[in-house]
């Protein structure tokens, strides 16, 4: 499917119908999900209503990681085939990805306050997500600092791939570190049980977040593709080249 979409015209045709689909799914998903999460789902017997933050926090964290995977895949394609659409896609995935990471951290922090009585806890998950945010920021900084965007794309794609391989390493090391240092009572607030009353809103929110990610990314990719197309149309003709023999 990737090679099918690689042609900008075909991509634009795909995006024209896919973007609103993602948008609608996201909208319905959020409305339903938030209703289920905030109103229709049960309280946690320990945490009370604050457990509801989980429905915002967990999908955000999951989406942050999924976005980075998409970013890394696009970077791989960009690196091997030097395809502009892959460059555009990778960059487009990074912004919502970083936003979801930040959202996960903030909601995690807000969840932590009533649960642990502290806004921040250096537990395995939060620390890993914080480091993921650093990776996103570094990735976006590479794009921002290097003026020639084709060049930026190349360096960013290399960095993204190095980052991707390191993420499991980072997660493993932070979890291991955390298991040494954190007393057991401070385990992170996990999803309390897996009854369908919990799973349904959680899954709905997951779908909603993913659709939102898809909608945002597609819009960004479309904007950039159109911009690249119009830039190419307006492009200067370039130098005229002539080759002739030189007489002695």
């Amino acid at each position, binding site marked *: 499917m990737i090679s099918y979409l690689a042609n900008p015209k075909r991509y634009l045709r795909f995006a024209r119908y896919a973007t609103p689909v993602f948008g609608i799914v996201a909208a319905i998903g959020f409305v339903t999900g938030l209703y289920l999460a905030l109103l229709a789902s049960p309280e946690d017997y320990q945490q009370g209503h604050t457990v509801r933050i989980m429905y915002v926090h967990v999908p955000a964290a999951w989406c942050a990681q999924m976005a980075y995977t998409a970013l890394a895949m696009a970077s791989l394609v960009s*690196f091997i085939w030097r395809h502009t659409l892959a460059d555009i896609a990778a960059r487009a995935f990074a912004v919502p990805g970083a936003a979801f990471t930040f959202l996960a951290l903030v909601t995690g922090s807000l969840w932590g306050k009533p649960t642990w009585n502290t806004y921040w806890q250096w537990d395995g998950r939060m620390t890993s997500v914080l*480091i993921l945010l*650093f*990776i996103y*920021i*570094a990735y976006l*900084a*590479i794009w921002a*600092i*290097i003026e020639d965007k084709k*060049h930026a794309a*190349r*360096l960013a794609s*290399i*960095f993204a*791939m*190095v*980052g991707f*391989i*390191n993420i499991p*390493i*980072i997660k*493993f*090391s*932070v979890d*291991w*570190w955390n298991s*040494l240092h954190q007393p057991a009572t401070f385990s992170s607030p996990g999803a309390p049980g897996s009854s369908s009353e919990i799973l349904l809103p959680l899954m709905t929110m997951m779908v909603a977040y993913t659709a939102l990610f898809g909608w945002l990314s597609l819009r960004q990719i479309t904007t950039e593709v159109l911009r690249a197309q119009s830039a190419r149309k307006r492009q200067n003709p370039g130098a005229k080249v002539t080759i002739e023999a030189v007489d002695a």
Partner: protein
Amino acid sequence: MNMSLIKRDLKLAARSGGAWLLGLAFFMVFLTLTAIALGGDANVMRPLAPALIWLAVILSAMLSFSSVFMSDYADGTLEQLKLSKISMLSLCASKAAAYFIMAIAPLIIAAPIAALAFDLPSQVVWGICFSLFFAAPALSVYGIFASAVMAGRGASGFLVILITAPFLIPLLIFGVAAVDSYVQTGLSAPEFRALAGLSLIGSAIGLPAAAAALNANLE
């Protein structure tokens, strides 16, 4: 890895008027400032010392990362090397070796001296040295990678820090833990295996990535 290249880099460092000592200087100053900030009380500092020394090493290394390839980009040597028999991968490996000798080895030597200043028992000192030694390849390789990406763009020293920090964190985690474990179980502690693993994986990823970055920056 190419011996002529390594020797050349070492010769250049020797003639650079001490510029290669930046990391070492920072290391000493950082630890001095830390000791002062902590009030100089040995009982307060002793438990923190392995972490502080490791922190000093990571930060000093980060400082010296950007200079690795800076002059090679600036004076056009990189292009000449690309058109030679030395592959970019071999170049990166040689640079990592030279970087280890110039930047990391002095820190490994200075660490025991710093440890004395913190009144650490000799077991802990050995732990620190061994943990640094096992982590050194990873540290060098990530530095080479960061410098290759930055291509000597001077204003973005902070980007070097952003690029390397996430990958240096596992090193820091296992490095500090290795020091504590060494005191109990010696070199068989799992943390040393983890550090060795990180160094191997780091080299396997970082060196080709650095070579790719060098090629990208020559485009």
